[in-house]
């Protein structure tokens, strides 16, 4: 990877995001139209300006046609992207490469997921083999990181569970400041601690909801961005590290940290020229599908030392008023998690924060933001990271 090859080459000039939640009366197509037309309006572009598009969807789309059909995009290249929960952000990443290389000036990225049509609570079960790989859920697979992580760092499990509860409380609070978030109510630490256990240490309030939603971005060459808007946002770097599933077959995979996420962070920081993420990053959106994910991601992303995340949570480091605010819009926990829309929703929050448009949850004078969408589960992660920054 050539450091700096993508930095400042591509700009985000418009974004859109539906309200996340239970959209009983909206289809996949409706959600896409809502998000994309909001992005068109924000960028000040028309459908005919779109030269190419990328559509991210884990299970709600078939092809690029799922985007072309409702939007009536005629005969342009559209690629459907699927990379688990990294899908939406990976769609953005690939679109940025196409613009950076000079092939297109202006393209569209969208991510959509319609989970509430299934009739089932929670996500469908994902399996890696028709016979032996069945019987596990997403919270179960994520709960696996808790035992060894707590043990490796001498964390009393009760202290660990309390830190998880505090992350849930923080994200629920941030959600109340986000009109488009799925959940708009605060919870207490005690409520989170007393909630029914789903997969220890994860209780109900440690798990994100199943949500419908879509988000979209209009991106263009950085050198033409100012013709659309003054306060565009620049892409600084990406990281994507796909794990080969070592956790289930490698006795050296220890389940006490997230090696894939650390690898993706190294790529992203190198691409963006970041030496000290804790100091340089002003605001971050990370993948809190479960609170234990957010806790361990603090360390994997270099926001704190290994084994110190519980102490940092207790110190309030990642609250809206803290040193490095994380999940300012409520995260997956409160904003919701329509799989492929999530990565773009995170970028949307950075896009608002970096331009000072985040309203009551606005972070003071941010310059650099990080978003990380985590596909897979401990033992087989595929994290994707986007670093965005204010225009020069």
């Amino acid at each position: 990877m050539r450091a700096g090859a993508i930095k400042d080459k591509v700009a985000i000039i418009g974004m859109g995001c539906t309200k996340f939640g239970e959209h009983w009366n909206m289809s996949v197509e409706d959600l896409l139209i809502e998000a994309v037309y909001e992005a068109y309006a924000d960028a000040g572009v028309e459908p005919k300006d779109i030269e190419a598009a990328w559509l991210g969807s884990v299970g709600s789309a078939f092809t690029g046609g799922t985007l072309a059909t409702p939007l009536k995009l005629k005969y342009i290249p559209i690629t459907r992207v699927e990379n688990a929960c990294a899908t939406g952000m990976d769609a953005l990443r690939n679109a940025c490469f196409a613009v950076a290389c000079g092939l297109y000036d202006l393209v569209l990225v969208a991510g959509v997921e319609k989970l509430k049509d299934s009739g089932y609570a929670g996500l469908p079960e994902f399996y890696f083999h028709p016979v032996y790989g069945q019987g596990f859920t997403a919270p179960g697979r994520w709960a696996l990181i808790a035992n060894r992580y707590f043990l490796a760092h001498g964390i009393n499990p009760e202290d660990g569970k309390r830190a998880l509860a505090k992350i849930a409380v923080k994200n629920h609070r941030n959600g109340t400041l986000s009109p488009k978030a799925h959940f708009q109510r605060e919870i207490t630490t005690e409520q989170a601690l007393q909630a029914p256990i789903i997969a220890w240490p994860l209780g109900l309030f440690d798990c994100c909801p199943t949500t419908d939603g879509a988000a979209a971005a209009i991106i263009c060459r950085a050198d033409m961005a100012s013709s659309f808007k003054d306060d565009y946002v620049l892409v600084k770097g990406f990281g994507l590290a796909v794990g080969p599933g070592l956790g289930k077959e490698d006795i050296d995979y220890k389940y006490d940290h997230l090696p894939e996420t650390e690898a993706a962070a190294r790529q992203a920081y190198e691409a963006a020229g970041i030496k000290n993420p804790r100091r340089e990053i002003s605001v971050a959106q990370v993948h809190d599908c479960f609170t234990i994910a957010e806790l361990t991601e603090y360390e994997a992303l270099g926001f704190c030392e290994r084994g110190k995340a519980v102490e940092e949570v207790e110190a309030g480091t990642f609250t809206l008023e803290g040193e490095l605010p994380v999940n300012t819009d409520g995260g997956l926990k409160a904003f919701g998690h329509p799989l492929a829309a999530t990565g773009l929703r995170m970028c949307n929050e950075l896009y608002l924060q970096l331009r000072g448009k985040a309203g009551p949850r606005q972070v003071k004078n941010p310059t650099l933001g990080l978003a990380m969408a985590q596909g897979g589960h401990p033992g087989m992660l595929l994290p994707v990271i986007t670093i965005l920054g204010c225009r020069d």
Partner: protein
Amino acid sequence: MPAIKSTGAYIPYYRLKREEIARAWGGGAQKGEKAVANFDEDSITLAVESARDCLQGIDRRTVDGLYFATTTSPYREKQCAAIVAAALGLKKNVFTADFTDSLRAGTNALRAALDALKAGTAQNILVIAADCRLGAPGSDFEQTFGDGSAALLVSSEGSVSFGASYTHASEIIDQWRTENQPFVKMWEDRFVYTQGYLANVKEALSAYLKENDHALQDYHKFIIYAPDSRRHQEACRMLKVDSQVQVQDPLFEVVGNTGAAFALMMLVAAIEEASAGQRMLLINYGDGCDLFALEVEGEPFVAKERKGVKGYLKSKKYLSYEKYLRVRKLLEVEMGRRRPPLVSSAVAINRDRKMIYSLHASECTNCGRAFFPPQRVCLYCRAKDQFREISFSERKGKLFNFCLDELAQSSDPPVIVSLVDVEGGLRFYGQMTDRDPEQIELDLPVEFTFRKMSEAEGFHNYFWKCRPIR
């Protein structure tokens, strides 16, 4: 002279106290408890377990026949013995056969095995009987029936040799289960036991003794099938044998009547307690009678790891009646509104059959590291297609990591997501069964067990799980 080279048994982990059944339905409770197969067990998986027990310390390549007996075959069309042979990793040219539909199926299989040995068409035949029958809720059968399995390796040489034998067929409608009935049915009990069971046993024993010019006193131990404890005592009285001294304990109070497996389980228990020079008579009933004389010639072969009836009786966990209804699927229970794992593929199973049935891993021939599932490209040295397959079903391991997944669908929640570091340096990612969720901790010693995973696509999907060492 055909002989028994090795024996094995299997008794499920769960037990149901008969007073617990009486609590649910009122009325009297028979004495003791019964063994209950877990939700992921059926006659095939029970058979695999007792066969593994029997084959401890035996070279599996020497087995050239596998006879499987049951009245509760999971398939109406499809051979169970072939599935059991696959799980045991037996050689390709093993002769497999199912003996089904009769309580005498276990001894029918044994007789056929002895005939094959006498005829010289086989040297080592594994005879396995397993049953998990259901009595209708509230019935006497519900109290008497238990689940279990026995296995005998019958060979041209061994420490327990077979002597004379006897058989007769007898048609009587005493006890039955038609194609579509889930529960065993019977005619009025006085008729059934006097005209069926007792009359047949008496006739068979008399005929056998007369044919061979033997007397009761020529035998030290009688192993007598009976439908229940009361009839067992009646039979002993009728045959004039001392039920305390001369008769093998029929396991009613600790296991229950295990159907086609019952007589052979009693035989295995008898051999476990036998001393050299002991002469035994085995009598089985079901649509007729089978009799076998046996003599213990030397110290029976017992491998170090073998658990047998004695070993499996020691490890158990009690069920409530409500949980019994759930694990035996006697009641449709809400499993949560989750998408059921209904996907399977006969093609994928066929392609991965060694991994799925025989629990194969790959061992890199370049660097020696081993992986499950088998990998073509080595994770460590990246050597491509340089591996040999090894089975690790008999290895032990330690629970490296786990979680209790309360959301995953199961008849016995929570699902224990388990990462096992197996002896020899490989990792297994799967489920744990036969466990007490409160007793699970990191580094717990575990072993592997063959289980039914699902009924996806209308057929039974089998694979291996780990369990705390029993």
